[in-house]
């Protein structure tokens, strides 16, 4: 005797719910990190929003059929993050929609331009990601700026807010999404142990060098030393290792520099 419920949609619904929850939790964690940078930048706008990169990367990997789950997770996490950070409650849903729209736009553009075959080792694809990130972040920043203006609580000129929001989200997408996008292909291929070891050593060296460089006291070297000392590590990783290591290097670079 057959039951009236169709098991397949139910199963899919549970999967989507689980994904939405997972995305929400991870997005919340990443947003917390972003809000930490917000605290250090005198409470204007977060200067680095890795959560946007995380959500965009996941959606690019999973494909458009999971966009509702991802969008739901992003909105829920954004609201939660605002509540936790004791920010204005009424901004939260609007920011959630902006963040979700941003992720959907970036993933949709990538899907539209490159299909499901996005590759970090392909220069046009990387440039496409940059353009998609700029468009998505730009639109989201516009929405967020409008929200702040409408609610009458801006702490800076609208242009500054838009610029900071745009740069933070674009930075988040460009530094975090490639790491996620690069992981599945990397997990599918048999890595030569030598290459894996070299990539790991290079990343550790970059982290250490970044930490040391940005720990230097203020001085005239501040204009040249950081870039000059970290560039060889970036070149090493980019030239010798798979693109996913370079993506990780970019993320490390961003985190270590902004952390200071």
């Amino acid at each position, binding site marked *: 005797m057959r039951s009236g419920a169709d098991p397949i949609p139910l199963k899919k619904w549970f999967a989507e719910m689980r994904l939405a929850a997972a995305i929400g939790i991870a997005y919340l964690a990443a947003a917390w990190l972003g809000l930490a940078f917000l605290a*250090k*930048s*005198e409470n*204007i706008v977060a*200067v*680095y929003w890795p959560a946007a990169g995380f959500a965009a990367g996941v959606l690019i990997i999973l494909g458009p059929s999971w966009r509702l789950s991802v969008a739901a997770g992003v909105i829920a996490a954004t609201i939660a993050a605002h509540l936790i950070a004791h920010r204005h409650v009424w901004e939260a849903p609007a920011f959630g929609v902006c963040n979700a729209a941003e992720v959907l736009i970036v993933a949709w553009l990538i899907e539209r331009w490159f299909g499901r075959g996005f590759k*970090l*080792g*392909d*220069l046009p*694809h*990387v*440039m496409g*990601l*940059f353009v998609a990130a700029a468009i998505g972040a730009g639109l989201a920043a516009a929405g967020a700026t409008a929200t702040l203006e409408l609610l009458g609580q801006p702490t*800076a000129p609208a242009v*500054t807010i838009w*610029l*900071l929001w745009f*740069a*933070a989200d*674009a*930075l988040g997408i*460009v*530094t975090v999404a*490639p790491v996620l996008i690069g992981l599945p292909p990397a997990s599918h291929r048999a890595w030569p142990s030598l290459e894996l070891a070299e990539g790991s050593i290079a990343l550790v060296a970059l982290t250490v060098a970044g930490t040391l460089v*940005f720990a230097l*006291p*203020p001085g005239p070297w*501040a*204009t*040249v030393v*950081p*870039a000059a000392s*970290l560039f060889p590590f*970036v*070149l090493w*990783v*980019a*030239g*010798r*290792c*798979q*693109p996913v*290591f*370079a*993506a990780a*290097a*970019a*993320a490390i*670079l*961003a985190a270590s*520099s*902004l952390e*200071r």
Partner: protein
Amino acid sequence: LTYGIGRFGDPTVPLAVRALAAQTGILAGALSALFLAAVFAALRESEGRLRSILNAADVVAWEVDLICDTVHATGPSARFLNSQPGLQPFNVWTSGDAVHPADRESVRAGFAAALQGKAPFRVEFRLSLPDGGMRWLASEGTVVRDKDGRPLRVLGVNHDITDRKNAEAALRESEARMRLAAQAANIGFWVLDLETQRVRGTPEYFALFGLPPSDEPVALEQIRALYPLEDRSRIISAVEESIKTGRSLVEDRRITRPDGNLRWLHIVSDTRRDATGRPVARYGVTFDITERKESEEHVQLLMREISHRAKNLLTVVQVMARQTAGEVDPHVFAEHFGDRLAGLAASHDLLVKSDWHGVDTADLVRSQLAHFAHLVGTRVTLEGPPLKLRPAGAQALGMALRELATNAAKYGALSNAAGVIRIAWDIVGSDRGRRFRMRWLERDGPRPRPPTKRGFGHTVMVEMLKQALEAEVRLDYPSSGAIWELDVQLDGPLGRGMILN
């Protein structure tokens, strides 16, 4: 990175501006890392693809830098070539140590000619390996020059053609064997270009048609002209049908060679088509079957002859039986009949031995005098030139001789100890008046007594020969001994069939 937002940067600048500057710097750094990674990955992928292609094609790509005097090679054999002193590509082109001594000069000359711009660099040579082995390499290259035309580099590829060379050697050997077999079997191979309507063939092929060997293709019309006129349309239709149906054509054709010699050829041919299925050529083998054809015709003739002879023989036997039946004593009948059958059989044996091609006159006489073989040369003498008699004449003459010998033994020269027989034959006259004459002369025997009645013996000795050969036959019994004479006009309708040569 240049303008950090924390402890870096000018504190007098607003924090938001410093944050934007930091974001921009980090973004640029991150993008640079990603772009560099993409570029390097693309380069690695391209190089990997090139290596895969070179490996798959078993090709070594090389570059000789003529200024720096260095060589770089990529491909499956690159490591091997670079790790073996004396085997590096540069040494191959200049000193040529690793090149097989027989190929060194051609390799050096090819390289020098390419550098001088006289010819593209393209050589095939053998390379001696350290383990004592040898490989065949094909090398092709292009010279890169400066604006003044001075050679700077040579870029090229080597590919291993050992298998191809071995296959070519095996093919050459196979072709040589086949040519030898074709020569031994007198088989000709040919290819007809359907567009030019010209035939290219082996020397054996042209020899079959009585034509001189030709390295150049010969017009098809020249070949077709050798077919009898009445066969040509049938041959052309058969070829067209073969092209249309795609079935190979197997047939026997008559030809008349330029010297007038008629030959039979067996031809097996088929159509070669291009990639679109369009017929482009006919090819095949041809060999001479004239002897087989003649043999077949002879067999058929023989069968007809045997049938005819058998009927004649049965008629003769029937007449013999009827005539001999006049002997009232069954024992006498059996003896006479058996003796005449033996004579007939002796003539028959001779004809069979010669495949019914004819019987030598002396052999025929000897066969009929088989019982007196020990007397031949002493009391029986044979005189006459070698003359081959046709089967019909031989059979009738044989029976007559047998009858004469029987009579001689019973009543004539061989019935005593002193009688002799002289059997002589010859061709007399010339041209249209030629006659075959044979005489049987007995002497020193008992005085002959002419027979009182004419029995079967007379029929065989006289009447049958008259009818069978339109001969004049005389049988007398003078006191010296019996005389039998046969005179056949060879130009007569029946006499023409008497003598073969």
